[in-house]
């Protein structure tokens, strides 16, 4: 098992290395850090701009291969992912923003899984009942609402609530308010800021779990072994709970394991709408600010977490499903 994981991880590592380097070239090709300076007043000459970029290995006069080599050596030897065109350390940004994202997404992931799976199980056992039809309709609707629309709707409702309740307890922007001091007030403030984005993310996240869990369980309900279990004297509900559900939860567990590392990569749209400075927003900002190093580091970070997720999902499957266990 351990050997297998190591071999798998090596394969993933190779892919991440290739993907990251490919992104480096793509980003260098498509992003032009110089354009950041062009709108500045007083107007800088091209030469001045290039010189300003040189310390960060972004100087376009330097051949791309040289820049790449500098970047690669600094990553492999010092694990330094470079600096933005304005000189901000990418390592520092990612370290901070990943935690902000995790703060935002972890709770939403937990809620999505719990609500989605519970709803999936509840409705599958009552297929075609009114609860099933209703929640199915809602989920299909939600599934088809673009994330931006959903997030904005949440904002809209929150503003309306704030106006009508006459107090400002639903924060529609930022991860904290400036000027809050003391441990408890800080925690309370942060939690209040979490409410809306979490609601929005959960709304978008639970749907997938609901629909997949429902269909997984429905597939299993017709299985012969559920009938066998009923023949031994279990009621339908008991047979579903003890036999069908346990089996149908295995793929869900794998997909939860897969999505756990993804909490650090954040949520692009939600973070943008709610102005959270997490990884998702960083991703948008690095591209729009022509930050080659930031973009590449984001790509590498996301690819790594995908790989970690895939390995975790494998481990979860092997752990839960005796059929794929290697003895």
């Amino acid at each position, binding site marked *: *098992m351990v050997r*297998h994981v190591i071999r798998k991880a090596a394969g993933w590592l190779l892919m991440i290395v290739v993907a990251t380097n490919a992104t480096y070239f793509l980003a260098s090709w498509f992003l032009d850090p110089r354009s950041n300076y062009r709108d500045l007043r007083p107007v800088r000459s091209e030469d001045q701009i290039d010189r300003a970029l040189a310390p960060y290995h972004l100087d376009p006069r330097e051949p791309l291969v040289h820049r790449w080599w500098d970047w690669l050596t600094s990553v492999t030897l010092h694990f330094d992912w470079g600096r933005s065109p304005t000189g901000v350390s990418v390592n520092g940004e990612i370290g901070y923003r990943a935690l902000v994202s995790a703060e935002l997404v972890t709770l939403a992931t937990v809620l999505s899984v719990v609500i989605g799976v519970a709803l999936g199980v509840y409705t599958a056992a009552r297929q075609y009942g009114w609860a099933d039809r209703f929640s199915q309709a809602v989920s299909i609707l939600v599934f088809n609402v673009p994330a931006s629309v959903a997030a904005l709707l949440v904002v809209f409702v929150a503003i309306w609530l704030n106006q009508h309740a006459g107090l400002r307890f639903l924060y529609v922007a930022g991860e904290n308010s400036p000027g809050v001091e003391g441990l408890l007030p800080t925690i309370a403030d942060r939690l209040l800021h979490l409410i809306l984005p979490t609601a929005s993310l959960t709304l978008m996240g639970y749907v997938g779990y609901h629909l997949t869990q429902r269909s997984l369980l429905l597939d299993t309900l017709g*299985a*012969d*072994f559920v*009938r*066998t*279990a*009923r*023949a*031994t*004297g*279990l*009621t*339908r*509900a*008991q047979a579903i709970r*003890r*036999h069908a559900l*346990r*089996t149908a939860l*295995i793929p869900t567990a794998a997909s939860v394991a897969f999505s756990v590392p993804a909490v650090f990569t954040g949520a692009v749209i939600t973070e943008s709408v709610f102005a959270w400075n997490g990884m998702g927003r960083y991703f948008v900002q690095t591209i729009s600010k022509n930050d080659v190093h930031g973009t590449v580091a984001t790509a590498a970070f996301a690819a790594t977490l995908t790989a970690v997720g895939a390995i975790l999902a*494998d481990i979860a*499957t*092997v752990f*839960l*499903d*005796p*059929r*794929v*266990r*290697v003895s």
Partner: protein
Amino acid sequence: MTLATPLLDPAPGKDGRPVLSVRDLHITFPSEAGPVQAVRGVGFDLLPGRTLCVVGESGSGKSATALGVMGLLPPSAEVRGQVLLDGQDLVGLDDRALSKIRGKSIGMVFQDPLSALTPIYSVGRLLADALRVHQDLTRRAAWEQAVQLLDLVGIPDPRGRATAFPHEFSGGMRQRVVIALAIANRPAVLVADEPTTALDVTVQAQILDVLRLAQQETGAGLVLITHDLGVVAGHADDVAVMYAGRFVEHAGVTELFRRPTMPYTARLLAAVPTVDGGVRRPLVPIGGEPPALVDLPAGCPFAPRCAVALDACRTAEPESHEVTGHGHVACLRAAEIADGSLDPKGDTPPAGPPAPADRTATATATGEVVLRVEDLVKTFPVTKGAVLKRRIGTLRAVGGVGFALRAGETLALVGESGSGKTTTLMEILRLARPEGGRVEICGTDVAALDSPAAVRRLRRDVQIVMQDPLGALDPRMPVSHSLAEPLRAIGRDRASIRARVRELLALVGLDDTIGDRFPAALSGGQRQRVGIARALATEPRLLALDEPLSALDVSVQAGVINLLTRLKRELGLAYLVVAHDLAVVRYVSDRIAVMYLGHIVETGDTEAIFADPRHPYTRALLSAIPIPDPGRERTRERVVLTGEPPNAARPPRGCVFVDRCPLYREAGEELRRRCRTEPPAQTPVAGDSGHRYACHGV
């Protein structure tokens, strides 16, 4: 619609009171075309310790009856009538009330053991859970009982195996576990729905023995549902023959087989191929198809297929009534049939000429050799785990097989699953250099085919008929397109293709209009005829038939056998048949090669193999096939094999059969050593050079 079926009171058993009484059971499923009346007024009494066999073809409603008794039908099914268990009517009870009865008073054994066990629990856990549903046991005590149950159903090393998961067991072993589950709480009634259909014939014999043991152990009454009349002959006390949702004949086993009184029963028995007896009697197919169970027309549902039907048979469905000295029969002419004044089969001669005469003609004929196989070898890599694949060895699926086949001759490769027979067939059909050995078709060594064009030319001479006629036809193509495909592949023009398609349909006895239909709209027999027609399209000389009959019902099977015999004679074809069922093989083949674990262990003329089997495996195989005759089935001496075919990834070094060989167990030290270390050579039987076997001990 008939009135309530009269109560059946079978000969009172030893202890009198029935454990299970079913009265006028009706089961209806909704469907798009209207309600499907799957069961229409079934009634019977089951006495403790007795076995009632319900026999019928697919779609006759026998499985629905079983599920109806268990209360395991889908909620959409409508159930009427009574299922009286110990005086309590189960029909209409809610799930909670039924769950107190299921597993405790009635146990059920299902058809497919591979999917009947929850994959994520160990078998010990499954059994312990089943015990604890109805009994107040500690975990430890339940586990102990589970181990005892595994021991009872014949699982070796029960304590060790209890912690194993279902997928770690073979099919036969899983079915033993399912039986253990069914008898865990010592139910008074056992219902077994085709418990051996998915299993090999040698394993079937073991499972039926386990079932009988389980029945003795618990004293339960057994409802055994099967399509196999041989199993009925060996195990039933009473037999109910089901047709179109009703019991059309219900009698004691000896009476039923001595004088089948419903024409359907009689025709069914005449259509079953058997392995016993010196003479091979011709098979008489039942024409037509079983009726669809929606909007049944008035009259006896069997009347359209019946040779002795009267006009009255077509106007009203006959009631089931008692025939003195026999049982209950739903036929207007039962009395005439019972007293012997009417032959229920009618005087229809068997379709096609009597087979034996035909065969003696071909057996002596020496046509040119169309297929020669020498020392054929095929291996597969063995991997383990579904997600975490890794190679753990090499499976030697075919280990040096050789035979020759002449025009006008049929050779059957016979063996259980994993014997390598289908692999052999596929290797021949691949028309590419084999991994080892030589394949020569119509004088051409396939290894010498150097261009795709040469391969395509040879393809015309070799065609295949596949096992599952539905799977072998593209569901999205009408029949005529499927038939045209091989012709198009060899570049025939449109007009000649159209003419040939019509010709082919006529050749296999199908109507022209069939050409416009999609495979889903055909019956099983029609589909297989289309499959045969397609294989004949390019006028091949060699036809490979992969289990051509195993997916067909008995009443249809005989017709296809006769068709194959006729085509071979008319077109001078050579058949290479792969089959697991020796009884069927007897009717289609001139020579037989018995395969075990990738090797031919015995080969010879069909009748020589049946009359004088030499290899212990051939003998065991022959004796494992149940004979549809209660007298002989119950008295004959049987060689029951223990265990199951070993893993072909680690075959024994000497004789491949050594692990299960009954001779080996009784052999002396010297012989045992040879069996273990030295692969036996093919030895000819004195006086019959074509009959050879590979055994040290005979």
